[in-house]
């Protein structure tokens, strides 16, 4: 087994037993990025110098016995919309190509406190707006399972890096599926925590009532380890929960006996690729054989979740992205005639097409005459959708289904059909609408040997049950053990 194939917990063992040093491991990972990333294009920025310095520092603390976190010395990558002090944070946009944050995001600080080693910043859709990482201003990340296909998005660089062993784990952000869908396309584990569990301080805002940061890892155990480190209250994020979070490694229990699982029939209808339906039904069988009680349920509101999500998300985005006017940070247009020209040209030259499209849509649904018909209406629909999911959770401990109706598609295949792209978010957006936690874990391969993800959705702040179910499935199946060949 090669070093990049190890999990966080396995590497922690090797480091603790002095079988490998943190600088050796970090050097190995940087060399791997050097040799592989020209092909996969996961990273926007590789922080080689800082990584080696950090590695030396962490090794010293481990030797002195002052640092004993399971994440100590483990090399990782961070999505490029999460602020890192002194390291460019571009959001994969020309707009922020010159932005070097003066502070670390709360999650970054937490990871540093745990001795994490940052390898670099990972590619994404511009401002996290997209599901394929094709809208990045800088590069198109390739899916490690088939380099002619997209890695999913918007955290496509994070998922591809973890799947290809260019990072041991990564952080992503999930506004409407941006952690879970790329995790599913690339065959790794991706968790979107409950709204409020992880601070967004330092996450560049897209749609503030949906955005959450979460881990992308190789295994459910690693997911619990990273979640332990990043969860918890932060006074700098008003939506951050004050609730004490449990130790998520305590949820790594191989047992689902008596667990009540709902499978919405709307999640396995004809719109879903047959291989994916079969994989989800197989997962139901795995859980049933292990003693869980699985039942088909109905969530009829599903046909309205995508328009509801997009109306609210784009309205919030148009407001959040109003701050990019060239004044305090970001792209500045040259030789402006006056203030209005300065603002308009800085924005028009700095933003890409998808970002402009979403700002225009958001502005439209908030504009006088359309506010009630679209925005207000969507907020009411949000009430109904949240209520329906909460009602389902009165009877069931978790809800399962696919992450996406398709597996990874070809680069360029869908980029010109925005409606089609939006509609494929159908199984991930309700989770953000209702603020629930959900995980994507590998549950099979389609006829082209592309990974399929299983989505497990839980009650608010009940990551414990989500992790327990995911861990049990993983312990009783082998899908997570497969590696892309990468013609190495």
């Amino acid at each position: 087994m090669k070093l990049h194939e190890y999990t966080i917990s396995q590497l922690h063992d090797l480091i603790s037993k002095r079988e490998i040093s943190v600088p050796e491991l970090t050097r190995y990972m940087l060399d791997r990025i050097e040799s592989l990333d020209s092909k996969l294009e996961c990273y926007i920025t590789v922080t080689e110098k800082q990584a080696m310095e950090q590695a030396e520092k962490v090794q010293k603390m481990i030797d002195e016995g002052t640092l004993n976190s399971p994440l100590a010395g483990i090399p990782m990558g961070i999505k490029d919309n999460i602020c890192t002090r002194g390291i460019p944070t571009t959001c994969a946009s020309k707009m922020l190509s010159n932005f070097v944050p003066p502070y670390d995001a709360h999650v970054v600080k937490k990871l540093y406190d745990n001795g994490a080693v940052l390898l670099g910043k990972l590619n994404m859709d511009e401002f996290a707006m997209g599901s394929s990482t094709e809208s990045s201003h800088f590069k198109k990340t390739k899916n490690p399972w088939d380099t002619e296909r997209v890695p999913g998005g918007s955290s496509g660089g994070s998922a591809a890096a973890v799947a290809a062993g260019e990072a041991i784990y990564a952080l992503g952000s999930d506004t409407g599926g941006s952690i879970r869908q790329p995790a599913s396309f690339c065959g790794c584990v991706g968790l979107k925590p409950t709204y409020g569990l992880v601070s967004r301080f330092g996450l560049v805002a897209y749609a503030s009532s949906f955005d959450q940061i979460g881990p992308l890892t190789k295994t459910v155990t690693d997911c619990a380890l990273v979640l332990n480190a990043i969860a918890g209250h932060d006074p700098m994020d008003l939506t951050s929960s004050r609730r004490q979070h449990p130790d998520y490694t305590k949820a790594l229990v191989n047992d689902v006996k008596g667990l009540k699982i709902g499978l919405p029939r709307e999640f396995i209808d004809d719109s879903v690729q047959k291989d994916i339906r079969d994989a989800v039904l197989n997962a139901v069988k795995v859980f049933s054989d292990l003693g869980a009680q699985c039942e088909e349920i109905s969530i009829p509101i599903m046909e309205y979740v995508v328009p509801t999500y997009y109306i609210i998300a784009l309205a919030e985005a148009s407001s959040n992205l109003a701050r990019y006017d060239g004044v305090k940070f970001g792209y500045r247009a040259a030789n402006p005639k006056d203030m209005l020209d300065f603002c308009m040209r800085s924005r028009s030259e700095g933003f890409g097409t998808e970002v402009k499209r979403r700002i225009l849509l958001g502005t439209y649904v908030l504009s006088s005459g359309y506010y009630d018909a679209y925005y207000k209406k969507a907020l009411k629909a949000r009430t109904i959708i949240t209520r329906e999911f909460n009602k389902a959770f009165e009877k069931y401990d978790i809800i399962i289904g696919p992450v996406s109706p398709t597996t990874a598609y070809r680069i360029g295949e869908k980029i010109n059909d925005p409606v089609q792209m939006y509609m494929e978010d159908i199984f991930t957006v309700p989770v953000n609408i209702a603020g629930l936690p959900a995980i994507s874990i590998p549950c099979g391969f389609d006829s082209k040997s592309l990974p399929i993800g299983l989505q497990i959705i839980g009650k608010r702040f009940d990551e414990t049950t989500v992790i327990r179910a995911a861990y049990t499935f993983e312990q009783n199946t082998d899908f997570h053990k497969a590696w892309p060949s990468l013609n190495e």
Partner: protein
Amino acid sequence: MAITKEIIEYIAMLARLQLDENEKNSMVADISKIISYFDKLKELDTSNINAMEFLVMDEDVFEGALRDDIVGKSYDREDLLHPEEEEGSEYFTVPRVVE
């Protein structure tokens, strides 16, 4: 209602975006399609339903979220200035707004 070029121009002005003719035409086409898709929501009966302005928040979670007004740590001015400001500048520079 149909999305016309005039509507796109008006919305673009509100959003402080300048679009060239090609962009305008493709936005008319794309945004029309997307808005008709959004129109599906009109079928949904939302009478007597309150709008969800905030995500449901458990009281115990957010209680005491307002902190005392205590001066906290700030940043160095240099770190906060735009990277294109001239060396030694203490301000953000913008085009003249008063004559």
